[in-house]
């Protein structure tokens, strides 16, 4: 199949810029190529890495449809048009020696160091004591299925091929990976000693010649035992290094609190970021230790090809700035969760990069932005230009609800026969973040008894922070009402999910009752 390169600004555009680690990158590029995508590689400068290995990504300018990678390589800087980017994150493996009060040393090593040493380990001479390796899993912090798999495979080599002994000392043994439970059973059958720790922890007693004895309480027999290992192997957790944050920053995407891309929002599917065309692959970096590289690559390739089709069409719906009303205050530029606002001679929303959430519309002080496309006129933000909507009769309760959560919850509520009594004007919106303070005030001034804004739970918003924007705007209206001597309870905010039908009913009922009480 065609590689998908097209001519943009003279230089052939490539499908994907792969931003990532030297170690993780080649496999991913190969995988992408196997999936029919052509990629160019680059990375942020990473200390410890030899210079010149990969072009340095100085910036990624533009938006989806106009992305250009600024690259610095041996032959000098150049710019390369790309359709999108995939960030490959290897993460750093960090062993928790400190919480275990264990000194790393020649024979007290990380799991990855032990795996490297494993091929060179000797078989004991006949008649010699079989050496013992003790693996510590999840004792200085939570472990991962990957660590379990690595430790079990090392233990199998030790027990079967080398005639060693092996012990696994664990907190929560992570077996939520394919075949791991069966592998644990096999290890036990082959003679591995498995000791679990619930509250307590083994203690390490330093002995001569760098040796460390391990004192434990066997929980099942409630007896004490001391192990004299030749090696102590500590599992590692994956943490984002500073290069991970740097990569996220260069491509303009929001990482999660752990530093990895994408943000921890279920609607990113562990793949998409807040910027259209920028994906993130978790292979090395998935802190859950899932082993899904093939599926990750396939899903990434699918998304890129789907975006290619998307790019060739006019999007159904997008926010548009009215240049006559725009005061160039750049509020929209700061508010846009998707990096879709371009600053040029005019401030413009890049239609193909726009997710049509309307957060900019809700934030614009000049009311210069409106969502356009099919369903135009349904948006409450268009109320000033389209006074029929929402239809407010004096005394009405007006509910603005996100289509993805509150509107679905309302349908479920009705389905369950729990719909609260009383009329209300329910206005489905693309995201609660498109509701401005002015929209709420307009509804109240038009005679609404109250305005309730229903958004997705924090961390669940498609627009990342549209729900938080909505909450702060409702709070601002409530303060204003308070200062104006009016009942601040006339504006309300609540978060719901699509499957919370009963809670939708309760929320509306409680809001109405509070209004009735005044």
């Amino acid at each position, binding site marked *: 199949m065609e590689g998908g390169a097209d001519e943009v600004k003279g230089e052939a555009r490539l499908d994907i810029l792969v931003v990532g680690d030297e170690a993780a990158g080649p496999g991913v590029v190969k995988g992408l190529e196997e999936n029919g995508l052509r990629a160019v590689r680059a990375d942020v400068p990473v200390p410890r890495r030899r210079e010149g290995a990969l072009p340095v990504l100085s910036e990624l300018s533009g938006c989806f449809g106009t992305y250009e990678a600024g690259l610095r390589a041996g032959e000098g800087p150049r710019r390369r048009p790309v359709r999108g980017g995939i960030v490959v994150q290897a993460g750093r493996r960090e062993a928790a020696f400190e919480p275990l009060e264990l000194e790393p040393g020649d024979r007290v090593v990380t799991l990855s160091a032990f795996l490297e040493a494993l091929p060179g380990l000797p078989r004991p001479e006949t008649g010699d004591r079989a050496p013992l390796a003790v693996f510590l899993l999840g004792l200085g*912090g939570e472990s991962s299925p990957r660590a379990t798999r690595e430790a079990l495979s090392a233990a199998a080599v030790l027990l079967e091929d080398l005639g060693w002994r092996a012990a696994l000392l664990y907190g929560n043994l992570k077996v939520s990976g394919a075949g791991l439970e069966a592998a644990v059973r096999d290890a036990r059958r082959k003679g591995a000693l498995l000791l*679990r720790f619930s509250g307590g922890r083994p203690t390490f007693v330093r002995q001569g010649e760098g040796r460390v004895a391990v004192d434990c309480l066997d929980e099942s027999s409630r007896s004490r035992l001391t192990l004299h290992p030749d090696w102590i192997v500590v599992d590692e957790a994956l943490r984002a290094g500073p290069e991970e944050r740097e990569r996220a920053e260069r491509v303009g995407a929001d990482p999660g609190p*752990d530093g990895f891309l994408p943000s921890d929002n*279920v609607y990113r*599917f562990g793949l998409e970021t807040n910027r259209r065309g920028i994906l993130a692959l978790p292979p090395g970096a998935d802190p859950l230790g899932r082993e899904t590289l*093939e599926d990750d690559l396939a899903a990434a390739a699918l998304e890129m090809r789907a975006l290619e089709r998307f790019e060739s069409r006019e999007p159904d719906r997008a926010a548009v700035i009215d240049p006559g009303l725009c005061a160039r205050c750049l509020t929209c530029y700061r508010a846009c969760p998707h990096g879709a606002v371009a600053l040029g001679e005019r401030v413009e929303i890049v239609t193909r990069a726009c997710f049509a959430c309307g957060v900019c519309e809700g934030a614009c002080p000049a009311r210069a932005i409106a969502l356009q496309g099919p369903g135009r006129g349904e948006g409450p933000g268009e109320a000033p230009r389209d006074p029929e909507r929402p239809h407010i009769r004096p005394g009405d309760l007006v509910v603005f609800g996100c289509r993805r959560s509150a509107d679905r919850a309302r349908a479920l509520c009705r*389905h369950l026969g729990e719909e609260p009594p009383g009329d209300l004007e329910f206005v489905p919106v693309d995201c609660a973040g498109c509701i401005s303070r002015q929209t709420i005030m307009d509804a109240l001034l038009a005679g609404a008894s109250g305005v309730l804004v229903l958004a997705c739970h924090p961390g669940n918003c498609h627009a990342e922070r549209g729900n938080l924007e909505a909450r702060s705007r409702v709070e601002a209206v409530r303060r204003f009402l308070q200062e104006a001597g009016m009942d601040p309870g006339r504006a309300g905010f609540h978060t719901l999910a699509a499957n*919370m039908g009963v809670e939708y009913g309760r929320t509306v009922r409680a809001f109405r009752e509070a209004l009735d009480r005044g």
Partner: protein
Amino acid sequence: MPKPTVLIVGGGVAGLTAALELARFEVHSEVVESSPFAGGYAIGFSCKATDACVRCGACLAEDRLQSAVEAPEIRLLPSSRVTELERANGSFPTVVLRSPRFVDPDRCTGCGHCLDACPEGAVQMAPSPFNRPPVAVDPDRCVRFAGGDCRDCLDACPESALDFDREEERLALEADAVILASGFRAFDPRDKPYGYGVLEDVITNLDLERMLREQGGPTRPSDGRPPRSVAFVQCVGSRDERLGHLWCSRVCCGSALRIARRLRFEAPEVEVTVFYIDIQTFGRDFDAAWEALRREFRFVRAIPADAVLAGDRRVRVGYFDPETGSPDALDVDLLVLSVGLTPGGDLVRTADLLGLGCGEDGFVEPGDSGRRRPAGVTAAGTVLGPMGILDAVKSGKASAWRTLGHLGLV
């Protein structure tokens, strides 16, 4: 060239996701779902958010289902099963039998009058308002199928949407590719010594999900009161060598602990005890979450021996306390069994029909297992083994990609 058609066996999260992804490439899908309602187990689940989203992914089921129902490229065939499937010259002539649709999806408004009218409880309400039709008649419970002449639902329906004269339909399809996404079967805990099916206040985590979804909170089935103490038993039907279930079901720790947190969020006085073997990681912030969870709930690292009715109508859980080294008992208002994911009942037959192999554990062997898969056939979701909603979405996307490759569209 006419638009290609993909047969998707199973209308759960993975199957619907695959169909939606194919729809982005204008590929038509026929989604054959054995139950009357698409959406899989997950469509019966509830949000577990406290003051913020806890990433259970349950809302994705609603999202997938509504999008699939509205997508013109997708045809959902509930109450249907594949009875014949051949592989001939790169295409798959298929016969699908669709159970008689006693409820006309175009007429039914989901008002629920039939539900209230049925004396036998034979009318089932769909879990989601986006299921079409939103109600179904269970022929095993309806007296009309046992020679009776009850007309209560027919008389109650204001839309004349019910019709018992409809017959089974036989649909002949010509598919260009097949995705097997028929899902898992939840372990039936009746043979475990916990009194499920006998003691009213012993329920499964799936029952609890349904309760949260339909009532907004838990109640004791015996007296309808909210429980003040709840215990969860993990790994019921998972990690169980005697059953030959040598797998961790992966989703139950996250499910139980997220639900426990939601219960506590709604009713801070609820006491929660969790019986467990090992707590599996869920969520990217698990290190911190686990520290907090240990303070919030009581964790007992033991699988209980049994559950019996205690004097005050509570459930008495007998277990061996690892901390004291002696047997002990705990009385709770509600006992929740976290049941495992097992291979679907019909999986071996369906997989065989498609030329896919199942491993020792009964799940479909992964694509990289070495065995050659027939061209144009892929598997997605929990037919491959236990996985959560988010992983099922990814698996559905990946299978859609492989299918597009087979169709020569990418």
